């Protein structure tokens, strides 16, 4: 997996989606039309499912439920009413996707910023603040990636709901309001932010450490000699130089949280107060599975954000993904 993976041979430092370089083009004697044909066919096959989703979401209810989406091209009829209904709720599905859509942003943006900030700080300490156990701590954090997040769900849920104590010492307070069954944290984004931050940290620290540790030693030492504190060096030197690594991981983490269902179901349930679009879609699919025109419209609203990020920031997205695909 990652230790060596991110250093050299595994993930070459070329932008994988960029056009090929000239020597490679020269090296290639023939570009086979047969290969191109197969690729075009596969690309077509790979795109059809998503195209079907988009087409179905734009068809009138009766058409979508009684005929295949491919008949649309023979009999085109377009309506926006599916989107209108799924956004605000309507006769078929009483509550709309809008609150969940905003929840997704309110969960995913902080849940990308928090672990990144803490990971940058920890990575800096592990790379440039000398202490005795730094190697041990670093490898322990790396090893924590083995723990699947399923291992943490139940205990963390207990922690948020009932508090934790080690014998008499309280570690996490019991936040139940007096006389009520509900924790103060219920109905807030806080458990989701904390859980996503915790689960993201091992990988984030590991990847950012790899980057920060390679900053020029002379630069750091010169700053130390000039009397700059660690806090100043971190703000003025390390953060500005680490922007590429930070951007890649930020995008990866944002999309990971946006697309997550398991953590959302566990810590947010399905209420419009805090649950994200994925939880909404999973619920609606279970209850109103036959309303194809509405479910597809909802799904398209949910995937349009990652798709925009993907097409706009493809280069960063690919780097972040290649680096982060081992997460979980």
């Amino acid at each position, binding site marked *: 997996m990652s230790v060596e993976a991110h250093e050299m041979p595994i993930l070459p430092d070329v932008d994988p989606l960029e056009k090929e370089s000239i020597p490679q083009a020269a090296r290639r004697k023939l570009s086979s039309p047969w290969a191109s044909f197969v690729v075009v066919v596969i690309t077509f096959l*790979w795109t059809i499912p998503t195209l079907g989703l988009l087409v179905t979401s734009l068809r009138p209810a009766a058409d979508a439920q009684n005929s295949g989406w491919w008949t649309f091209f023979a009999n085109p009829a377009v309506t926006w009413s599916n989107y209108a209904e799924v956004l*605000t709720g309507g006769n078929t599905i009483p509550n709309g996707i809008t609150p969940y859509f905003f929840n997704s942003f309110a969960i995913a943006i902080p849940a990308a910023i928090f672990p990144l900030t803490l990971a940058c700080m920890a990575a800096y300490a592990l790379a440039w603040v000398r202490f005795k156990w730094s190697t041990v701590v670093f490898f322990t954090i790396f090893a924590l990636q083995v723990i699947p997040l399923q291992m943490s769900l139940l205990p963390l849920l207990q922690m948020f709901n009932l508090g934790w104590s080690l014998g008499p010492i309280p570690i996490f307070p019991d936040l139940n309001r007096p006389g009520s069954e509900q924790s103060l944290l219920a109905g807030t984004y806080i458990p989701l932010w904390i859980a996503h931050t915790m689960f993201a940290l091992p990988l984030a620290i590991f990847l950012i450490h790899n980057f920060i540790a390679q900053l020029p030693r002379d630069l750091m030492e010169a700053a130390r000699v000039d009397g700059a504190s660690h806090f100043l060096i971190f703000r003025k030197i390390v953060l500005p130089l680490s922007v590429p690594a930070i951007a890649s991981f930020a995008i990866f983490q944002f999309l990971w949280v946006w697309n997550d269902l398991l953590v959302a179901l566990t810590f947010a349930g399905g209420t419009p107060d805090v649950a994200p679009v994925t939880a909404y879609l999973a619920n609606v699919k279970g209850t109103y599975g036959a309303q194809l025109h509405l479910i597809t419209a909802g799904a398209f609203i949910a995937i349009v954000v990652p798709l925009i990020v993907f097409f706009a920031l493809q280069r960063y997205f690919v780097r972040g993904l290649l680096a982060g695909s081992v997460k979980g």
Partner: protein
Amino acid sequence: MEELLLGLEKLWSGFLGIAAFGVLIVVLFFLGSRFRGRFSHPAALLIFLGPAVVLLIMGLIVPAVRTISASFQNSSGKEPVGWANYQWIFDSQSDVIVNSLLWIVITPIASTALGLTLALLLDRMRRESVAKSLIFMPMAISFVGASIIWSLIYEYRAPDKPQVGLLSQIVMWFGVADPPKWLLWQPFNNYLLMVIMVWIQVGFAMVVLSAAIKAIPGDVVEAAELDGATGWKLFSKVTIPMIRATLIVVVTTIMFAVLKIFDIVRVMTNGNFGTQIVPNEMYAQAFVQFDIGRGSALAVVLFVAVIPLIVFNVYQLRKDRATR
């Protein structure tokens, strides 16, 4: 309108969270930089490393220990039951284990094989970036979204009615009069669900392997060609050994993802009709049946299954390095 206001309120809570976090960090930095002399070093260490370490202990280490101990307790987590929960998994959940094993073996191999084929073909193509983007795109889509996309393909309608599912329609065009109810069609429904995962992961395998193939030095290929290696021989004796490490990373990375995947099965069948896998069963036991003991035991099974993958991976990479 009302909904937009509500939405702004939600964004505002998100913003408040970020602001509170920002203030906390600024205060910590301010306090930390007040320390001078021999306290400055430990203070910096505490502030930079402390928050992450505390969160990791509370979020991963302590929960892992608690889950392992809960897996030896009964459904309410109060009485010890020894190995009973594990006994239950291997006695009555063997189908679930078998399904999970099928997922872990078939999906990564299929995705990698297809991704490698595409990478090789792309290497012989002039304009590759559009095809790459489109094949890679499913990777940005959530598993939930992908499941909904594919439910349009697997939708079943009686054969005398107009078809809505693309797969049924295609097999009917090929002369099958009565297509099965795809998602209920045991045991093949498992493979149909795996197709969704392959659809998502092929792009990843393709992009990584394509980069690895391009990184093979030109003189190596030329030397092999001078020695008369072409086609299959060039592929099996030069290309594959040169990208071996990358292949292992791709297969094991997809294995990790597959091992813990939960969303596809949950949304498509919720584990019914013989499609249950360990992560979804874990969720069902822990959060639907509220059986803490069994849920925890299933989580531990996942954990134990991950370890050999990682050990193998690190070992292979070491070996690869040593021979380089």
